[in-house]
C-alpha cells in the first residue's frame, strides 16, 4: 500500500529515532506515539534501507523489527553493531525467545514483544537515551545507582535498602553490579554469567537463576512480586528503573 502523505507535523528538535519495520500499520502506530511524545522519526521499510539511513542520519535510537523481508534482523543487528554503538531495540513476536536472545547477544540492547503497549515502548526508549547520555558524559557510568529504596554504591561496594545495609556474596554482588551498570536494560543469562562468573560459564543459566532468586530474597519486599529485579522470561533479567 502506498504511503499516505498525510503525516502529523514532527517536533523540530526531539531525539531522532530510526524505525526499521516493514509493516506499515506498526510504523504508523509508532510514528503517532513517538511524535506525540516529542521524538523525531525516520522510517525504513527494508533492512538495507535501514542500514543506509542509520549511517546517514545518525539516529539516537534504532527500533529494529526482526521479521524483515530482505535480511534477517539478526544480521542487521550484527552489521550495525560492527560500526556503531547506537542503542538498538528489537521488536519481535511472543514465543520467539531464542531470536531475542540471539539478537541481544549479537549486539541489540533491548527488546519489545509484540503486541506492546505505549508505556513499555516509551520506557525502553527513555532508558536507551539515558544510557547514551551517561556514557557520553561519564564514560563508565555513575558510581551510585538509586532505584526506589535501593541504593547501589559501586565505588564502596555497598548495597542499601532503605536504611539497612544488605550483605551479598561476591557473586551476588557481581550479578547486581552487572544489572546496575546496565540499569533499565535487559541482560541475557549469557551476559550475566560472563559478567558475574567470568568466561567459560556461559552455558549454565541455572546458576544465574538461583543467584537471582537469592538476590530477590535479599533485596525485594515480596520475592514473588519483584519490584526491581524483574525476570524477562526466556531471555534474562532487568534491573527496572520505572
Amino acid at each position, binding site marked *: 500500500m502506498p504511503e499516505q502523505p498525510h503525516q502529523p507535523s514532527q517536533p523540530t528538535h526531539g531525539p531522532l529515532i530510526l524505525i526499521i519495520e516493514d509493516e506499515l500499520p506498526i510504523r504508523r502506530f509508532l510514528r503517532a506515539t513517538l511524535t506525540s511524545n516529542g521524538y523525531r522519526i525516520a522510517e525504513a521499510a527494508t533492512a538495507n534501507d535501514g542500514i543506509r539511513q542509520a549511517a546517514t542520519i545518525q539516529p539516537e535510537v534504532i527500533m529494529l523489527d526482526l521479521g524483515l523481508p530482505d535480511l534477517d534482523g539478526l544480521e542487521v543487528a550484527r552489521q550495525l553493531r560492527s560500526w556503531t554503538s547506537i542503542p538498538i531495540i528489537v521488536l519481535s513476536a511472543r514465543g520467539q525467545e531464542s531470536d531475542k536472545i540471539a539478537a541481544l547477544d549479537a549486539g541489540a540492547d533491548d527488546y519489545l514483544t509484540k503486541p506492546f503497549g505505549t508505556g513499555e515502548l516509551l520506557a525502553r526508549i527513555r532508558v536507551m537515551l539515558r544510557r547514551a547520555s551517561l556514557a557520553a558524559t561519564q564514560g563508565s557510568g555513575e558510581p551510585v545507582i538509586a532505584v526506589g529504596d535501593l541504593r547501589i554504591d559501586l565505588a564502596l561496594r555497598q548495597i542499601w535498602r532503605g536504611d539497612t545495609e544488605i550483605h551479598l556474596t*561476591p557473586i551476588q554482588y557481581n550479578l547486581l553490579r552487572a544489572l546496575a551498570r546496565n540499569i533499565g536494560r535487559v541482560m541475557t543469562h549469557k551476559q550475566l554469567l560472563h559478567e558475574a562468573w567470568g568466561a567459560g560459564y556461559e552455558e549454565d543459566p*541455572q546458576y544465574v537463576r*538461583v543467584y537471582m532468586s537469592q538476590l530477590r530474597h535479599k533485596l525485594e519486599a515480596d520475592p*514473588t512480586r*519483584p519490584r526491581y529485579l524483574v*525476570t524477562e*522470561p*526466556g531471555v534474562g533479567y532487568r534491573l527496572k528503573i520505572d
Partner: protein
Amino acid sequence: MSDQRPNPDALLARVKAEEASQSYGRLKIFFGAAAGVGKTYSMLQAAHERKAEGVDVVIGYVEPHGRKETEALINGLEQIPYRMADYRGATLREFDLDAALVRKPQLILVDELAHTNSADSRHIKRWQDVEELLAVGIDVYTTVNVQHIESLNDVVAQITGVIVRETVPDKVVEQADEIELIDLTPDELLQRLKEGKIYAATQAERAVQGFFRKGNLIALRELALRRTADRVDEQMQRYRRDHAISTTWPATMRLLVGVSASPSAPRLIRAARRMAAGLRAEWVVAYVETPNELRRPEAQREQVIQTLRLAEQLGAETVTLSGESAADVLIAYARERNVSKIVVGKPERPRWKDLLFGSTVDKLLRSSGVIDIYVLSGDFGDTEPLATPAFGTSSPQKAYLWSCGAVAICTALAWIMDPYFDPANIIMIYLLGVVAVATRGRRGPSILVVILSVAAFDFFFVPPAFTFAVSDTQYLITFGVMLLVGLVISTLTVRRQEQVKAARVRERRTAALYALSREFASLRGLEQLIPAAVRNIHEVFDSQIMILLPIGGGRLQPWGKISGWMNTIAPESVFSPSPADQGVSQWVYDHKEMAGLGTNTLPGADAIYVPLVASERAVGVLGVRPERRQRLTPEQIHLLETFANQTALAIARAQLAEEAQQAQVQVETERLRNSLLSSVSHDLRTPLTIITGATSSLLEPGQALDQATRTELAQTAYDEAVRLNRLVANLLDMTRIESGAIQVKKEWQPLEEVIGVAIARLETSNALAQHPLSTNLPADLPLVPIDAVLIEQVLVNLIENAVRHTPPSTPISISCSTAGSAVIVTIADQGPGFPPGSEEHLFDKFYRAQQNGSTRGVGLGLTICRGIITAHGGRIWAEPNPTGGAIFRFSLPIDGSPPIFNMNE
C-alpha cells in the same frame, strides 16, 4: 443351474460389462472358413450400407487381393493412407493406427485381424491395433478365417496339414459384439477359385492341391459353422439364465457321463471325451454314490477319485451325487443341467444280477425321455465281483458265533415247544432267529444262520427225526423261503445302514458348515473370526490349517505371526507354511485360483491353498495341510471351497465393518471440526466487532463525544484487543500442542521466579484487579526442571481461569509443596466450583462451564495446560475445594539432580 432365479453375481458382472462396452467401440467380425468366401466383400457392402445411413465410415486397411469386385467397392469410401514400412528391403503397406486415431471416425474397416504387423509398428498384431481403436470408442469391422483362431490351431493343422502361424486369441473373437458367418459351400468356393476370383491363375493351381483340397474345405466349413453355433449357444444360455427358463431346450449340446468304481471307468472317460470333442460339447462327469458303490472296498473308491481327477484334467466338470438308484439320479441331474446326452459304460454285471436287481442302463433307457443315452464300451472289461462288505465294528468271527448261538437257543426253545405245536409253527421260531441275526446286517452270518436253522429243524423236528433226510418235499419250499427271507432282511438292513452312514457323514459336514456360519454371524473382528474358522475347518477336514491375510502392499502373512494366537486355538491345529509354500500362497492370492497339493498347479506343495474371495476381491488365502499328505477328494475340495467362501465373506464383512467405523469416525471428526470452526470464528469475530465499532465511533466526524466517552470507547477497544490477543495465542498454542510441535526445553528453574513472572504478566493485563492473590511457597523448594515459558503459560491460564469463574473480591491462592520426587503446585479459588463428576471434562477441548453467559473464552486454556504438563511428564487435575470453590493441581517431576551450588560464593 438348479436355481430358479438368475445368479445375481453373474448378472451384475454382465451389466458392468455392458456398461463398459457402451463407451467401448463395437466389434463386428466377418467370419469365414477360408480365403475367398467373400468376407471382405461383405464387409465392404455392409460399410456402404452404413454410410448410406449417415455413419462416418472410413477404410483403415482393406486387402483386395487383386479381386476386382472387392476393389470396386473400395472406391466410394474414404481411405486412411497406408503407412509405408520397410521390411527386409521391401516396402510394405501397413495399417496406420495413429492416423486412424487422429481421424477418429465412427466406424473403421480393418481387414485380416490375424495379420502380424511390421517390426516398427506399435503393436505386434493387428488385433491389438483393433483393441486400441475399440478402446477410444471407434466401431470396427474386421475379417477372420476360422483357421486363425488360436484354440483351433491344432485342429486345423490336423485337418489341412498346414500349421497356421498368424492367430487371433479366442478371447478377442469371443468378446466381439457381432459375428457374421460368411458361408460358401466347398463346391462354390472351388468354382470361384477356378474362375480366378480368389487367386490369380498360378496361385489358384497350387491352392487346389494344397490348402483348397475339397476335404479340407468341407472340414473347415464345418468348423466355422460349429464355432458360430457355439457362440449362439452361449448367447442362448445367457438368455435362458437371465430369464430363468428351466426346461430343457434340446438344441444344446452337453454330455453327462456316469461313472462307477469299475476299473474300466477311465476308459469310459476317455471315450466320452473323444465324443464330446467330436460333438464340440461340454461334458460333465458324475459319480453316483449308491449304496452298492459305498460297499466297495477302499481301494476301489480311491480309484473313483482318480477317475474324477482324470476327468477334470481332460476338461470335464465333475460332480458327486448320491442316491438310491443311479439311473434316477443321473436323469434328474441331466434335466437340471440341460443335458441332452447321457453316456454310460456297458453293463458289467452278470445278467442274473441285472434281472434280480435291475440294470442301470435299462432304467436309463426307459426313463430318459428326450435325453439320448449312449452306452460306450469299456474295452477289455474285467469285472471284479463285489467283495463281501467289510463293514461294521465288531469282528466277523463273533457274528458267526452269534449265529450258532441263535440257532442253539432256537433249537432249545423249539424243543420245549415241540410236544404242543405243529412243525409248521416250530419253524417260526427258527424264522425269528433268522430275522434276529439278519437284522445285525451281515450277509455271511445271515446265510449261516439260515443253513444252521434249516439243518437243525430238519435234524430235530422234521420226521424222520435226528436225520437230515426230508420226507415231505414241502419243507424244501420252507427252506427256500427262509433262506430268501434271511437274505432279503440282511440286505435291506445293510443298505439302510450304509445310507444312514452316508447321511450322517453328509449331515456332519453340513452341520459343520452351519456351525461355522453361525459362529461367524455372531463374532466381530478378525481376532475372533480367524480362530473360529481355523477351529471349524480343522475339525471337519482333520487337517492343519493356516489363514494368510495381506498386509500392506498385497503381500501375504500368516495370521498369528505378529500378535500370536493368544490361546484361542489348539496349537496343533495350525501349521506354519514353509517359504516355498508362502510363495504358493502368494500365487494363489494373486491369481485367485486354488493351487498346491492335489491340484494341477504347484502340486509339490505341502498343503492345498484356497483363495478367499469375496465379491471378486481376494481377501486372503486358506491353507489346508492334510494328515499324511493325502490328497483331498474332489468332493472334499468342493466342500473346502464352500468353507473358504464363508470364511472369505466373514473376513470381508469384518473389514468392511472396520472401514465403516473409520468412516464414521471421520464423519464425526468433520462434524466436530465444523462446529469448532463456527464456535472459534464466533469468538474471534466478537472482539473484532467491538473493536471496529468502538474505533469507528471514535473516527466518526462531526460526533459530539465528550472526553469520558472517548476514553471509554478507546478502553473498550483496548480490552477487546487484549482478549483477542490471548485467544489467538491460545489457538496457536493448541495447534502446536496437537501437532506435536511443542518442544519442552527443560532447564533447572526456581518455581518462585516462574510464578513471579506469571503474576507480573497478569498484573500488566489487569486481570488481578479484583482478586487478591496470595502465594505460599516453602523456603526450601528445590529447583525443578521445566520449560519456564510453558509453565508460566500454565500458571497464567489457571489463574485467569480462576478469575473468570469467581465473583469479584474472592481470593485466589497459589501454593507449592514437594511430594516424593515431584513438586505439586496448587491454585485454589473460592468461587462456585465446578459440577461434580466433570473433573475430567474440564480439560477437554472447547469445554466451557455452562455459566451465566459471561463465558468469554473459547475453552482451550485448561487443555493447553494439560498438554504442557503432560509434555513435562507431570499430571494435572482438579478437585473440589473443601472450603468451597475449585482446586487445580499439577505435578512436575524432578528427574535428575540439580546443580550443586556453593552458597558462600
